[in-house]
């Protein structure tokens, strides 16, 4: 798989030279391959949100480069603008940016800015609505009439309608109920699969990271301190605890089950893995999930 987006040692400081100076990023080397699903975890204030705003050129690094397909996205104004459309960024609580009279018009805002034809815009809006599970009649409503969860989907559709090759979401499930969370993450999964897009999700949920991400990057104090598959990351349980992050609930359940004398295998971090391990134990297998 080819690298689609890469950062080379980027640093960022807010309000440099004032009493409010704050160093947010201290040299980040990161890359995401084509079609990869990357989870970003880290405590509040560890630089995650600042980092993702560098990936579509909203923020300019103090030093270092951001490369999209090997080209610096700050090489020219046109390059930065092009990067905005290729790297879709969904902010926290994106429902607060809805502004149009209808959901349809709001989702069409991005495609229109891309100067697409009306036919193409329409196609993209319906496609995006399908990805996030919006019903056609909901497209005609005012975005302010919708429920909180539906508003959020409409806002995410507004980014998906640009058909970004890299879709980045900052805590997309914050404040949603459990079913809303699962549905939204399934929607993102289907965009990931069907379009072969690279997906980067910032999350505070270890469960979501363990279950959905192919690779996890751990942020602490403006640096990436760990990066690897969920198994590689969650093997460092004590280290994660020290950072104030903790383990997925399934890992704790597996630990308790092992404490009861059941010979459950290593590296079990999702509920599905617990279930599979228990079933294979009953069938008389070894029980090792790996």
């Amino acid at each position, binding site marked *: 798989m080819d690298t689609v987006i890469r950062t080379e040692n980027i640093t960022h400081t807010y*309000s440099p030279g*004032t*009493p409010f100076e704050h160093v947010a990023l201290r040299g980040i080397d990161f890359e995401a391959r084509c079609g990869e699903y990357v989870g970003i975890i880290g405590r509040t204030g560890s630089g995650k949100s600042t980092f993702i705003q560098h990936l579509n050129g*909203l923020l300019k690094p103090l030093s270092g480069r951001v490369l999209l397909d090997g080209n610096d996205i700050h090489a020219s104004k046109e390059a930065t*603008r092009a990067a905005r459309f290729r790297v879709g960024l969904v902010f926290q609580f994106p429902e607060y*940016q809805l*502004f149009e009279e209808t959901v349809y018009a709001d989702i069409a*805002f991005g495609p229109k*800015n891309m100067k697409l034809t009306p036919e193409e815009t329409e196609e993209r809006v319906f496609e995006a609505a399908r990805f996030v599970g919006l019903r056609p009649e909901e497209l005609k409503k005012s975005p302010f009439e919708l429920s909180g969860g539906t508003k959020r989907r409409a806002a995410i559709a507004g980014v998906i309608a640009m058909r970004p090759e890299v879709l980045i979401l900052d805590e997309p499930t914050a404040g949603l109920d459990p079913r809303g969370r699962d549905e939204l993450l399934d929607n993102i999964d289907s965009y990931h699969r069907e379009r072969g897009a690279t997906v980067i999700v910032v999350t505070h949920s270890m469960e979501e990271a363990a279950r959905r991400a192919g690779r996890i990057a751990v942020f602490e104090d403006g640096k990436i301190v760990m990066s690897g598959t969920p198994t590689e990351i969650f093997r460092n349980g004590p280290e994660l605890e020290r950072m104030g992050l903790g383990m997925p609930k399934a890992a704790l359940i597996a630990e308790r089950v092992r404490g009861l004398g059941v010979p459950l295998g290593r590296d079990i971090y999702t509920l599905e893995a617990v279930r599979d391990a228990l079933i294979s134990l009953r069938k008389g297998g070894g029980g090792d999930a790996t």
Partner: protein
Amino acid sequence: MLRDITLGQYFPGKTVVHRLDPRTKLVMTIVYIVALFLAESWSSYALMALLLIGMIGVSRINAGTILRGLKPIVVIIIITAVLNVFFTRGEVIFELWIFKLTREGLITAAKMTLRLIMLITGTFLLTYTTSPIALTDGIEALLSPLKKIRFPAHELAMMMSIALRFVPILIEETNKIMAAQASRGADFETGGIVKRAKALLPILVPLFISAFRRADELAEAMESRCYHGGEGRTRMKKLGMKARDFVTLAVGAAAVAAVVLVNFLP
């Protein structure tokens, strides 16, 4: 984006100026402004400048911060200076078409510019060194004698403190919304006036909605803590005049007297 707004911003610190009673600082600022308008001769200007520089020094406010604060009013200063240079009657030293450059004009323009810069810097010093809460407490205390004639001093102070409190929040909100719309390819920087005004719509609509939402939430939070206006309300932090306040006020009074006296000197 909108990050560099220093207008009315508070820079926390622990200097004598920071710790002065807000009432003292408010009164001193008014006294300072009055003195500035009484000043006429160069020597009285020099005295005022000395006083201002002394205050800045004591409050340890960064010179760069003050210069940045002056940036938004540069245009006003230039216009004032140009108008004064060309439209003051007096001894003509240079003439071009209908424009007459006079000696008196140059002097008035220089003094006007100095006066404006010192006026802005002096009043900024108040907000730089006084937290918004202390400032509104001070205003309420100074206005409270007017409560006798049913002047809503407390309500006014509360509205001011809420408005001040919301300035940074709304700036942050605006930045967030701008970033989000820019992520969808919104362009705020190119095009003619109509296009730019239209480009503001995707920012203004969400901003207004969020302002109303926040106002609702704040009202609810205040009511659930039994806020019912100023009547019978006590304070956790009472204002109190200390020795340093009286010294400052005495220095202020002396400065005004000195400026008036020095006016008679050349």
